[in-house]
């Protein structure tokens, strides 16, 4: 009898424990929860973390993340307003703010990802479709992203989420356009290199020709000075000699003739044919008259 009582009490305790466990649940700091009764949401979503109570067995709890969630849809090829194609990779950060609406519209995060990804792509296309590449690559990029964010925000409120941020992660040119860009970059660099080399040549030529000119001028100036000096010398000489020789022109002629004869005829290979009539031979044939008379 007492064994039966103990058994009943034991069974009761076990059932009680199971009931307690199935009626208590915790919601952590990172979570929010929705209580479902036979698949239907009951009451307001639980957004306070801690220990909570529900009806056992007939109610189940659906947990949703309360944190900022990430979505990184695959890159999309977008044609810009200036017809340039661009691979745009956008990413979204969002929060589930209304789990009830979230449950009613998409239920699970993976389904939301599909829907939200489409919205993001559509918003990116429509926004960038009216922008040029130079706009995307400018400080207007931020306002373009704000525009995309606005569009995505409006579209996604029906899912019970709040878009924290939508940003363009990458905006790259497709491969074929990249090649064209590389080609252009190469041409630009070649142009630059050619210019640098030509500048080098120009500067070198400038330095060399300036140096040549300076050297020539230096020599010419020296030449001029030299001629002036020589002229001065010649002038002085002329003046000095003229002063001396003009004392007696006749004597100068005689004096100069004598030294000129010596200089001009004094060499050994001169042959002189003389007649005894010259003054030099005045006494060669005849004695002076005084001696003759003796």
């Amino acid at each position, binding site marked *: 009898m007492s064994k039966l009582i103990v058994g009943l009490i034991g069974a009761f305790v076990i059932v009680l424990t199971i009931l307690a466990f199935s009626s208590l649940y915790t919601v952590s700091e990172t979570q929010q929860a929705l209580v479902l009764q036979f698949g239907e949401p009951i009451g307001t979503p639980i957004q306070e973390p801690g220990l909570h109570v529900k009806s056992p067995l007939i109610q189940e709890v659906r947990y949703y993340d309360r944190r900022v969630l990430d979505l990184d849809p695959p890159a999309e090829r977008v044609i810009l307003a200036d017809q340039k194609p661009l691979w745009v990779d956008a990413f979204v950060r969002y929060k589930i703010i209304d789990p009830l609406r979230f449950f009613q519209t998409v239920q699970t995060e993976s389904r939301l990802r599909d829907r939200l990804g489409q919205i993001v792509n559509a918003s990116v296309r429509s926004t960038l479709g009216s922008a040029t590449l130079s706009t995307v690559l400018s400080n207007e990029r931020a306002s373009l992203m704000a525009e995309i964010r606005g569009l995505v925000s409006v579209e996604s409120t029906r899912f019970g989420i709040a878009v924290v941020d939508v940003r363009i992660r*990458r905006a790259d040119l497709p491969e074929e356009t990249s090649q064209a860009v590389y080609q252009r970059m190469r041409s630009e660099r070649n142009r630059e290199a050619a210019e640098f080399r030509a500048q*080098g040549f120009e500067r070198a030529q400038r330095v060399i020709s300036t140096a040549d000119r300076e050297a020539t001028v230096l020599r010419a100036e020296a030449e001029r000075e030299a001629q002036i000096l020589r002229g001065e010398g010649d002038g002085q000489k002329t003046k000095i000699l003229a002063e001396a020789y003009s004392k007696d022109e006749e004597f100068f002629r005689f004096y100069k003739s004598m030294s000129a004869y010596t200089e001009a005829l004094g060499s050994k290979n001169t042959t002189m044919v003389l007649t005894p009539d010259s003054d030099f031979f005045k006494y060669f044939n005849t004695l002076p008259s005084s001696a003759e008379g003796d």
Partner: protein
Amino acid sequence: MPWSNQGGSGGSGGPWGSGPGGGPTPPNLDDVLRQGQDRLRAILPGGLGGGRGLTLILIGVAILWAASGFYRVQPDEQGVALVFGEWTSDPETTGPGLHWNYPWPVGEALTPSVETINSIEIGYNSIGKGRGGRTAARTNDVPEESLMLTGDQNIIDIDFSVQWKVRNAGLFLFNIRDPAATVKVAAESAMREVIGQIDIQPALTEAREQVQQDTQVLLQQMLDTYEAGIEITQVQLQDVQPPKAVIDAFDDVQRALQDRDRLQLEADAYRNDIIPRARGEAVQLVQNASAYREKVINEAQGDSSRFLSVYREYVVAKTVTIQRMYLETMSALLKDTEKMVIDSGAEGQLNPIPYLALPELNKAIDRGAAKTGREATQ
């Protein structure tokens, strides 16, 4: 079990663990247990069997369970204590030291490090990190991350790293899913936004510092918008280069710059060579001329004074001097020269006998040109 749903991040330890971050078991645990048992024995003396033993075991287990609620917070950590998944002391964190929270399965203690610097590599992957994780043995390029458009629609290859740490443990743990991935995409977005606004040339050279700063500021703003509780300590450009496809052209520009400098230096060398030489030559010319001038003047002065000296004496005895000078000159002249004296014969008549200039002829034969003596007669 509902308990297993708690806490997405950081698995809770078993009953004997003390949560992630793992503070060691308090050292006096055994003592506490033993003292407790002693006290129990004192309260319940005597050798009562099964019932009392069971009670002792239950009490011991309860004490052990309570003791497992101790957790230690290291100096670089912040402690976050949760009760049924709720951060009870929000936003207070516990500081370094030993703390107690309800043990599992009621409570949980998380101790994220707030000093550890985490690093994210963008545009490259280090393979085989060196000691301290700073120096990578080699790196793998990740072109889809590193190639980006610059403001002047060129493409640039940028590898950079982002260092971050936890600023607010609560936000970091509970407000953002996969914080590291978020930092990475946000950093890529920020870098591309910054690079998209400057031209390639400054990006490659002088604007690097600016790019780092702007990216860091922008990235921090983004993460603050997400309330991620993350602080960006540094954005560091590792390698900024033109894309591989055009790097040779860029290198050629550098070579062209070198060529330019080289040509200029060579020209300078040429100038430095010829200008002093020309100066030297110029000085030589002037000096030569100067020497000539002095020489000529001095010679003239010499000639002049010689003449004047002779003249002074000539004035005293004109005829004699003339005669003497004439004769002296002639004798000196005729002494060394070959000479032939021919009588003029009848006065005024041309000498009928032609002179055969034999010595001249000999010389002329030598020279191969005959000469007649006619020219020598007078």
